[in-house]
């Protein structure tokens, strides 16, 4: 019985695939859109995308089917999206790794191999210490690190991650050295390690650290955005404390290169409306994440600048590698 049902299902799917020939843009979208996430179900990129897509499909009039293809911090998904038919029926999301993979020899492509639909979210880096730590300000922390090179232990993800680059940018600009502890599980382990007194500090986005910050276990020294984050008006930026350190992990939606302009525009309008929806705004504010709605031009300008920044930084920390 099970067999027969599966066979029928398979046959129906095949016919559906055959019938869905390429369509013109004015009818777009007339069938479901596939949204590829390069990270596992339940991760940060996954949750935020699911909330966003649930809203965007209302404006597109077609369901958005989410497909997770985790692998190589998004690398597998980037390659797949770039090779999909440029008709707007295959899209997917990025993180900052779109600007690191190509400079670390992971995959040869970056944002220029795509049409960027929208930049919808940014999570700036931030530095956190335990509630009763001796450092009251970022300046005290940096000056102490200058006196004691490689002694202050800071937890910060794996080498080449955006989290770690944010910390290393501070090292490079101030010519100081921390003792950086890698976390195989990414930045999410950091705040717990700080609260438990296992490390002196951690680099993690406010969205990651918010719970333990709200619980009063850890305390921020500064956030690496240009302006203060809406959800945390009390946390000063690095800039206003006199440190020229800006580091964001942004998320974009990508479509394959050559996707018609009308289609990209239509997607942009739908996702822009989704970023303004009540559910999405509530979710992002409560998580402590920043909402953006940059269009293709602004996103491309940002990514081009980010490429330059990351390339230089990766060269400085010795991780730069030409992609094959």
């Amino acid at each position, binding site marked *: 019985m099970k067999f027969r049902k599966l066979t029928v299902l398979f046959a129906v799917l095949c016919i559906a695939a055959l019938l869905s020939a390429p369509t013109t843009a004015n009818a777009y979208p007339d069938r479901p859109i596939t949204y590829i996430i390069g990270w596992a179900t339940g991760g940060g990129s996954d*949750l935020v995308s*699911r*909330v966003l897509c649930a809203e965007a499909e209302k404006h597109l009039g077609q369901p958005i089917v989410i497909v997770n293809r985790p692998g190589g911090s998004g690398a597998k998904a980037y390659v797949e999206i770039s090779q999909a038919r440029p008709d707007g029926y295959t899209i997917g999301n990025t993180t900052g790794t779109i600007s690191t993979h190509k400079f670390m020899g992971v995959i040869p492509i970056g944002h220029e191999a795509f049409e960027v639909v929208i930049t919808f979210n940014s999570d700036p880096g931030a530095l956190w210490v335990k509630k009763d730590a001796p450092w009251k300000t970022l300046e005290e922390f940096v000056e102490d690190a200058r006196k004691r090179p490689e002694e202050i232990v800071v937890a910060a993800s794996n*080498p080449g991650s955006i989290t770690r680059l944010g910390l290393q940018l501070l090292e490079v600009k101030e010519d100081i050295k921390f003792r950086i502890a890698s976390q*195989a599980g990414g930045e999410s382990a950091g705040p*717990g390690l700080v609260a438990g007194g296992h490390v002196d500090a951690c680099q993690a986005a406010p969205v990651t650290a918010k*719970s*333990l910050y709200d*619980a009063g276990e850890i305390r921020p020294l500064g956030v690496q955005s240009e302006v203060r984050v809406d959800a945390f008006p009390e946390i000063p930026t690095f800039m206003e404390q006199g440190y020229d350190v800006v580091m964001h992990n942004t998320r974009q939606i990508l479509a394959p290169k050559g996707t018609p302009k009308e289609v990209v525009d239509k997607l942009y309008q739908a996702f822009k409306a989704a970023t303004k929806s009540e559910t999405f705004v509530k979710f992002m504010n409560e998580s402590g994440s920043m909402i953006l709605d940059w269009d293709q031009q602004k996103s491309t300008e940002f990514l081009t600048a980010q490429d330059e920044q990351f390339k230089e930084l990766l060269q400085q920390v010795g*991780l730069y590698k030409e992609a094959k």
Partner: protein
Amino acid sequence: MLLAALETVFTLKMIALIFGGSALGIIVGALPGLSATMGMALMLPVTFYMPPSEGILMLLGLYTGAVFGGAYSAILLNIPGAPPSVMTSLDGYPMSQRGEAGRAISLATVGSTLGGIAGIIALIIIAPILARFALRFGPAEYTVLAVFGLSAIVAVSGKSLARGFAGVSLGVLLSTVGMDHFTNISRFTFGSIELMSGINFIPVVIGLFGLAEVISQILETAKEGVIYKTIKHLFLSRSDFLKVLKGFLPASFIGIVIGVLPGAGGTIASIISYNQAVQSSKEPEKFGTGIPEGIIASETANNASVGGAMVPLLTLGVPGSSPAAILLGALLIHNLRPGPILFTTQPMLINTIFIGLMVAQFSLLLWGFATAKIAPWILAVRREVMLPAIALLCVVGSFALKNSFFDVGIMLVSGIAGFFLNKLGVKPGTVILGLILGPMFENNLRSTIEISGIAPVFTSPICIVLWILTAIMILYPICRMLRLKKCESE
């Protein structure tokens, strides 16, 4: 307040949502490749349009059901449907091969329900204390916890300890494949992006257990078809129930403690609990042959870990497992930030969660007993139909995980390898043990060394306790063996 919460939960709609959620969870859990995390992530958008209590309770039902559901496929097909049921298959499958599948499911049901209830009681009573305890676990503590888990090698290797070590080493070796998080160097990836994120252990589990069993059944045609006996008792026989009660306390204790730790979870809880059950048993050699104690140890512990995982989530906002991370997302959508503040600002919601979780445990009892008689019918299906169907399920399950044919390949290779390993007397459980605990040991050890050198692994109080427990787990069976030999020679 408690009364008001009771009123919220005990409405027809709420009860239906919890029971429906847990039924869905059981299906998700029973299908290999579909996990609790996945089921909950897929249902998450649906909860946007429900009031917070309804959405959260449905997800809680789903979570509870999914952790339990894995037991079905572990018992009936020898494919652990979800990682926490790996240990369940060790005794569950042999038992069902004897024709006692109904008994195995009943045991798993009662064990899971009791474990789940114990977990929730711990959550209600000592949540804040447990949360502090979880924070004290740093990389050094997790390193030794992994060693402690590895001491289960004695329990899962069967007759030959040497072959057990071989199996674990193979597992550890496989776990080193992928991008090294500390140096960003790819290990054994041969330039493949697929291998960069390592070998996922779920397709390996499906292959080693499920497909290997299919191959051996095809080749060993002389073997009799599966016998199916109806169970005589509606629920559990008296003696089985007493065994459940006996195994319940240590298993739920282990489940709660391990569940609380954000770096561990249900799978590791069931490994450690199974090991403890073997070591404290008078007849350790009977484990793995299909005895009730094995099923009880594994299923009670993994369901107790659900309550445990909720502790850091609700008190500190730190999710103790990936499904708990999705619950965090669901709470956030409704403007609810877990943490100590939630207890004071939303006591009503917290009470509703507690009561809802409790109801979810009882839904397991209903679904478990309702299916204990029906589910084993699947074994009465003729082998010519059954075996290809299981093989297909293995393929679909390993594909579904990441939508990746590469994982199907991993499953096929593991299946063939598993068949030969079985022939050589290497138990598949040992490979899985290495695959799960290898990275936990390596990553945490290296992290400890990066932070402060190796010293804390031997000096931190929690580590010392764990070392002592490990020593007991390893030395006790050896002493017993020596004593037995002495008796025999006299």
